[in-house]
């Protein structure tokens, strides 16, 4: 029953999310809206990603519930948020950003030239749309569907807070593993059942791979002016972003209100009280430290794996294994992974250290950065390693001198993605944090147990702000990776002989052999 519910709500949710994400991503590539507008929209759509998933359920209750912000503004409740519809909406909000990011990036590799070919061949607008946008994206659409499906299929936070009578398999797992009587044995049985769809997912991905094709090159062209088209998309963006804002606005209001919704008086008391707690500082530092370390280690892991896959001569089996690994870590519920780590590392020296948290996070956030870097590694020149070898480099040396510098912009994207994810994930690490290794998200979970919602929101905002800053910095670095290069050269020319040789040339070389 709960399994059927899970499939129904996750399936429908994934369908809606993919359609919506597709429309949003399409508009950013195929309209002539001002570039500034587009870049703002692009960030706003993924804003929910910067908040801990735990807050989504709250946000929905406090905005669309009986006493919610939206309900109060409109004057009556739009629909009952408990059960199917609440889940559906929260899941869509939850999975829209990652699905959007996936599709948005994939559109970059679609040759826009074909729009003209299609139009000039007399295609109807619908057929042009299909042949130039949908058809080339089928593989990615499937991937986005799977991603979205599993995110909601394995999430228990949202159904726990607004699932109502609509039981899903993830909450069952939650109740068995973490309920009144923890039962890890039955829990693992449910977890195994939950893994079955990932087999289907791997198959689906392999199947849609057949539809994939590569364009020889990616040409851009000047889009025709079309006020109707641009206006339509502008409206879509405004509506979607307004909806996201309306639902999350409450999070930015509650911390400044004495007691929502009974004493709506502005106060910074709550904020002061919560932030004056000395332990917050430690926990915040821990969080940033863990997220930063996870970002670095996760990036290195994903990079190495992708190198093996995209640029090594290892047998195909290794590469397939790598892909399967990437897929599976994405489909295992975080809670199961956390409990697995708990059992695996009990009694080992890394128990109750930051290392285990970082390791767990790195494994959990493997898939997306892996896919990101793999795409860009397989696009860059295949002759560089050979050239490097002919110039006397070892393979590793070429990797460091050439391959990595030329994928720097993707590396920055990976770093910021993993950092943000590590800041917001909860379900996996909750089991492996110890007394001295608490992070923000576990603190938030506690606040939730103790009914301190204002604290939940304040801490979430802190995470949110941190993520925004990180995102902005890394986006900037990513689009200006030559700046990094420039700074590096400056440093090298200021310090050391080694630098001088590399930069200024041959001053130090012996005159003759």
């Amino acid at each position, binding site marked *: 029953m709960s399994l059927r519910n899970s499939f129904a709500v996750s399936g429908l949710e994934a369908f809606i999310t993919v359609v919506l994400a597709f429309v949003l991503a399409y508009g950013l590539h195929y309209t002539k809206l001002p570039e500034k507008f587009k870049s703002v929209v692009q960030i706003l759509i993924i804003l929910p990603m910067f908040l801990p998933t735990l807050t989504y359920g709250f946000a929905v209750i406090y905005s669309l519930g009986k006493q919610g912000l939206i309900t109060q503004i409109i004057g009556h409740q739009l629909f009952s948020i408990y059960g199917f519809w609440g889940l559906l909406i929260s899941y869509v909000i939850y999975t829209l950003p990652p699905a959007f990011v996936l599709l948005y990036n994939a559109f970059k590799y679609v040759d826009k030239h074909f729009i003209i070919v299609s139009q000039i*061949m007399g295609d109807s607008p619908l*057929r042009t749309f299909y042949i130039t946008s949908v058809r080339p994206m089928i593989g990615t659409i499937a991937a986005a569907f799977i991603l979205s499906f599993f995110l909601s299929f394995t999430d228990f936070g949202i159904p726990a807070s607004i699932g109502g009578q609509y039981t899903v398999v993830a909450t069952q797992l939650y109740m068995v593993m973490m309920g009144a009587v923890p039962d890890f044995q039955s829990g693992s049985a449910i977890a195994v059942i939950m893994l079955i769809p990932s087999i289907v997912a791997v198959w689906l991905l392999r199947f849609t791979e057949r539809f994939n*094709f590569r364009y020889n090159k990616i040409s851009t062209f000047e889009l025709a002016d079309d006020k109707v088209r641009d206006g339509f998309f502008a409206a879509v963006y405004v509506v979607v972003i307004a909806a996201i804002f309306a639902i999350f606005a409450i999070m930015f209001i509650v911390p400044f209100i004495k007691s929502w919704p009974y004493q709506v008086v502005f106060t910074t008391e709550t904020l002061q009280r919560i932030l004056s707690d000395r332990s917050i500082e430690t926990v915040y530092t821990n969080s940033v430290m863990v997220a930063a370390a996870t970002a670095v280690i996760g990036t290195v892991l994903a990079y190495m794996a992708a190198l093996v896959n995209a640029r090594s001569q290892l047998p195909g089996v290794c590469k397939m294994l790598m892909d399967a690994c990437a897929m599976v870590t994405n489909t295992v519920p975080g809670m199961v992974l956390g409990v697995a780590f708990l059992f695996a590392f009990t009694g080992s020296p890394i128990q109750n250290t930051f290392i285990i948290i970082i390791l767990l996070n790195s494994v959990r956030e493997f898939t997306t950065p892996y896919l990101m870097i793999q795409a860009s590694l397989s696009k860059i020149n295949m002759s560089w390693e050979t050239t490097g070898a002919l110039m006397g480099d070892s393979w590793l040396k070429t990797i460091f001198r050439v391959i990595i510098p030329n994928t720097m912009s993707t590396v920055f994207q990976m770093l910021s993605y993993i950092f943000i994810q590590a800041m917001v994930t909860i379900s996996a690490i909750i089991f492996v944090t110890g007394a001295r290794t608490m992070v923000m998200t576990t603190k938030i979970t506690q606040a939730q147990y103790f009914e301190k919602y204002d604290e939940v929101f304040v801490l979430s905002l802190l995470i949110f702000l941190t993520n925004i800053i990180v995102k902005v910095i890394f986006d900037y670095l990513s689009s200006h990776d030559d700046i990094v290069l420039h700074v590096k050269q400056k440093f090298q020319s200021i310090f050391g002989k080694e630098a001088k040789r590399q930069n200024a040339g041959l001053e130090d070389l012996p005159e003759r052999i």
Partner: protein
Amino acid sequence: MLELKHIVKKYDEKVILNDISLTVEDGEIISILGPSGGGKTTLLNVILGITPLSGGQLLYKGEDLSRVPMQKRGFNIVFQDYALFPNLTAYQNIVYGLRNKPGIATKEEVADLIRLLDLQDHVDKRISQLSGGQKQRVALARTLVMKPKILLLDEPLSALDGVIKESIKERIRTIAKQYHLTTIIVTHDPEEALTLSHRVLILNGGKIAQFDTPDNIIHAPKDDFIKKFILSQLQIKRDNIYKLFEPGAMPAARQAQ
């Protein structure tokens, strides 16, 4: 008859095409020649209607097309990179347009065209299985099936082998004659431009450097640019080939032995 009157095209205040006026007769083959960045592709795009004009007029058979959208102009293009749909077979690509305008070409006409372009053996192949020359011909067939009023070609030959190149040139000439098709070809190879077309338009920095018959361009180059850019290339080629066919006159060969 296609008339361009004082055509101006700017991108963000940067003038790319500057006061281009010319007339192309029906059935004529025109080559556009010029250095990289000279505005060749832009001029093609303007005629096709991909990109709007910044100034001037475009007339076809006296009708002003300056504001008519691309789809309604009835011109067609073969892109330099062919832009064949990679998910369809060669044949599906060729008859792609017929789905939208079923009456435009009969089955026999398509078969004729396939035969004319020597594609019989390749129609069932996927695009990735075709050689460069074959792709080129499929792209040409796909466009010709649509019976365009004017055929535009962007660097159609630059990626091809010498032998294939000649055969495609021959085919373009045959088709232009057979269908009385006005054809405009962008290229950067003077030999190609001068041997293929009735008249050659040389663009430099967005302006017309010369628009004349090959004969006149070779024997009466209008300025130094034409002499240097066009003629010196040809002369080097001529010298190379003269030497090759002169027995024992190969300097490189002599040095080695």
